[in-house]
C-alpha cells in the first residue's frame, strides 16, 4: 500500500541512473576526451595519407619550411603549463591557496602565450591553407589543436576566477581537476602534433 502511495506521489520521468564508481563530471570529461581522440585521429589519418601520396613530399615546399625552433619554444611553454597546472592542483589538495591561485594564473598565461605565438606563426609562415594539400593539413591539425587550447583557456579562466574568489578546498576541487585533465590531454596532443608535423 505504501509503495503504491509513493508511486502515485512521484511525478515526471524516473531519476537518471548515477554511477557509484565514476562521478558525472569525470564521466562527462572522459567521454568528451575519447571523442576528441577520435577527432584528432581523423585529422592524423588525413595528415599521414598526404605524407604518403604527395609527390612534392612534406615541408620544405618551394623553399618554405616550417618554423621548427619557434614551435619548439612553444612546445616548451605548453609542457611548462602542465607542470604549473599540476602544481596548482597540488596546492588545492594541500590547502595552499597561494599555490592554487598562482599556479592557475600562470597556466592560463602560458596557454595564452602559446596561442599568441601560434597566431604570430600563422601570420609570418609564408603559405596559406589553400596553397596545397600539405599546407591545408598543417593549418587543419595545428588549428584544431589551437581551438582546443582556446577551450582549455576558457575553462582555466573560470577556474582561476573561482580560485581568486575563494572557491575550492582540499576535498572539493573538481572545478580544477577536470580542466586539469583536459589541459594535460591538450598538451599530449600537441606533443604528438609537434613531433609528427614539425620534426618528422
Amino acid at each position: 500500500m505504501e509503495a503504491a502511495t509513493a508511486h502515485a506521489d512521484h511525478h515526471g520521468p524516473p531519476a537518471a541512473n548515477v554511477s557509484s564508481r565514476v562521478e558525472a563530471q569525470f564521466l562527462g570529461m572522459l567521454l568528451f576526451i575519447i571523442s576528441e581522440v577520435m577527432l584528432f585521429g581523423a585529422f592524423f589519418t588525413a595528415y599521414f595519407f598526404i605524407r604518403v601520396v604527395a609527390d612534392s613530399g612534406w615541408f620544405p615546399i618551394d623553399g618554405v619550411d616550417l618554423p621548427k625552433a619557434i614551435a619548439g619554444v612553444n612546445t616548451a611553454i605548453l609542457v611548462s603549463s602542465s607542470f604549473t597546472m599540476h602544481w596548482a592542483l597540488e596546492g588545492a589538495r594541500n590547502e595552499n591557496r597561494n599555490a592554487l591561485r598562482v599556479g592557475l594564473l600562470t597556466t592560463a598565461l602560458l596557454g595564452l602565450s602559446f596561442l599568441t605565438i601560434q597566431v604570430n606563426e600563422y601570420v609570418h609562415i609564408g603559405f596559406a591553407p589553400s596553397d596545397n594539400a600539405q599546407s591545408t593539413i598543417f593549418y587543419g591539425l595545428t588549428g584544431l589543436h589551437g581551438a582546443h587550447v582556446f577551450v582549455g583557456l576558457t575553462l582555466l579562466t573560470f577556474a582561476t576566477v573561482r580560485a581568486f574568489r575563494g572557491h575550492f578546498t582540499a576535498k572539493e576541487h573538481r572545478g580544477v581537476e577536470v580542466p586539469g585533465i583536459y589541459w594535460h590531454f591538450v598538451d599530449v596532443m600537441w606533443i604528438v602534433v609537434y613531433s609528427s608535423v614539425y620534426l618528422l
Partner: protein
Amino acid sequence: MLNPLRSEQEAFRFLLYVVVVAAVVLGIVFAARALT
C-alpha cells in the same frame, strides 16, 4: 594500471610518459636517418 582519465595526477603522469616516449621515438628516427 595507469588511467589518464581517472584523475589529474594520472593524466600528468601520462603526459610525462608521452614526453619520454616521443623523445625516444624521435631519437631513433633521427639516428636512423643519420645512418642511412
